[in-house]
């Protein structure tokens, strides 16, 4: 979503050097962990599919949608979307790669702020969003509606959470002394709205993929026994009879 309005694509010089170094170290550690853990989700030879997911997030960020009542249009972040579709560790890698391309080729989000951006959008949004998703999915009924509800709430929360974390970093290492309360109020307000769009589009995409290729939705793996891939449900029922 329109992160840049909320300031989540952090540019160079927004946070001081110690904060940038600290978030950079955190980001590097997480990516290293994700590199190891993602092997359970994809082996070395399926890197193309992860690249495709990254390209998809990149293209998805090109699709603008209107934010009612605001002079800007939003676009997808895609953290929860990617995590639900390809799994959380691969999602961390995909989001990192997207942020790298944006920083190097488009100067969108500073190079020295890459660690901060990865921490906010690849680490926090994915880990927290996927955590919420799994937590809710465990409680909600194991149906399409249950999965989509969990997805929507997780996507919604991931946006203000990233914004609030940014405010926290700003309080720790901001280069500007404006009252933290003002920043928090302004950013949280905007992102609570932006989160609605993120949730709507994430649910729409996951719903569409779930309808056509449920096997592609990592987060709905537990739905699969109920919808066998071989043949349509009616056919299976007839065979069973």
């Amino acid at each position, binding site marked *: 979503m329109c992160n840049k309005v909320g300031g989540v694509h952090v540019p160079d010089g927004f946070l001081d050097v110690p904060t940038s170094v600290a978030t950079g170290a955190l980001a590097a550690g997480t990516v290293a962990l994700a590199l190891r853990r993602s092997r359970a989700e994809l082996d070395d030879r399926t890197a193309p599919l992860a690249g495709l997911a*990254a390209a998809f997030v990149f293209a998805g960020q090109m699709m603008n949608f209107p934010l009612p009542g605001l002079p800007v249009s939003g676009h997808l972040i895609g953290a929860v979307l990617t995590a639900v579709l390809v799994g959380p560790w691969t999602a961390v890698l995909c989001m990192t790669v997207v942020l790298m391309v944006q920083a190097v080729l488009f100067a969108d989000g500073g190079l020295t702020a890459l660690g901060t951006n990865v921490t906010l959008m690849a680490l926090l949004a994915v880990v927290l969003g996927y955590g919420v998703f799994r937590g809710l999915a465990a409680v909600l009924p194991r149906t399409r509606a249950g999965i989509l509800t969990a997805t929507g709430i997780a996507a919604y929360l991931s946006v203000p959470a990233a914004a609030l974390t940014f405010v926290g970093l700003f309080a720790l290492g901001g280069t500007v002394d404006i009252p933290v309360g003002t920043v928090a109020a302004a950013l949280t307000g905007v992102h609570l709205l932006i989160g609605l769009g993120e949730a709507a589009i994430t649910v*729409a995409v996951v719903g*569409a993929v779930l309808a056509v290729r449920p096997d592609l939705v990592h987060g709905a793996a537990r739905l699969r026994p109920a919808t066998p891939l071989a043949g349509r449900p009616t056919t299976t029922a007839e065979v069973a009879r």
Partner: protein
Amino acid sequence: MGAAHGGTLSARYLPGSTAVHRLEPHAKLVSVLTFAVVVVATPVHAPWAPAAYAGYLLAVLAVAAVAGVGPGRLLRGLVVEVPFVLFAVLLPFVAGGPQVEVLGLSLSRTGLAAGTGLLAKATLSILAATVLAATTEPRALLRGLERLRLPQVLVQILMFMIRYADVVGGELHRMRIARESRGFTGGGLRGLRVVGATAGALFVRSYERGERVHLAMLSRGYRGSMPTGPSVPVGTRSWAVALSLPLAAAAVLLAGILLG
């Protein structure tokens, strides 16, 4: 906001054979990153900070001139900055601390310095990154990242992302044409539903295409990494040329600290 990402990834590249184009990509990456670090490390509230920004700007513009990157391209690179200009302009009004009278407006002194610093630092780094993207092909950048020891899996994902970006973008373009020729105009909540369904269909279509490409690659002997040619060692001279930008910036910073 997404307009900044428009076009294909390689559209940022300006073909050429200037000294900047000929530099090794990883040397350029190190150079731009170091430059950004020096710029960010400049203390915002120092009285000599504006002079330092001017010095950095001269250095970047000199490199852009050598690379043949015109002012139009540099300005287009700056478009991503627009939302921050708003934020930076607001800073002097909302920041605390001692006030200063400018043109009849009461502005915060620290807010003014911070706003200027924020804008200057972001602008300088964006200019440097724009020159990098304009003088280096995406594939060369990948090789550079590989030589800088970026983990293999990340390089692979990056490589496939760059290759697939055009595929997914083209798919999206065709779907948009199809949608609009059916009378879709967009906007509002009903538009959101259509855009969501489009995105879902886009994912499935791209994924299935990716599956076919992957199978084709496996059948042609792909084993998890792309063959690359031998890497040429980089001489001291080209490192010196590549690092002249951050070194000039560091000299400006040092002069500011010593003289200011």
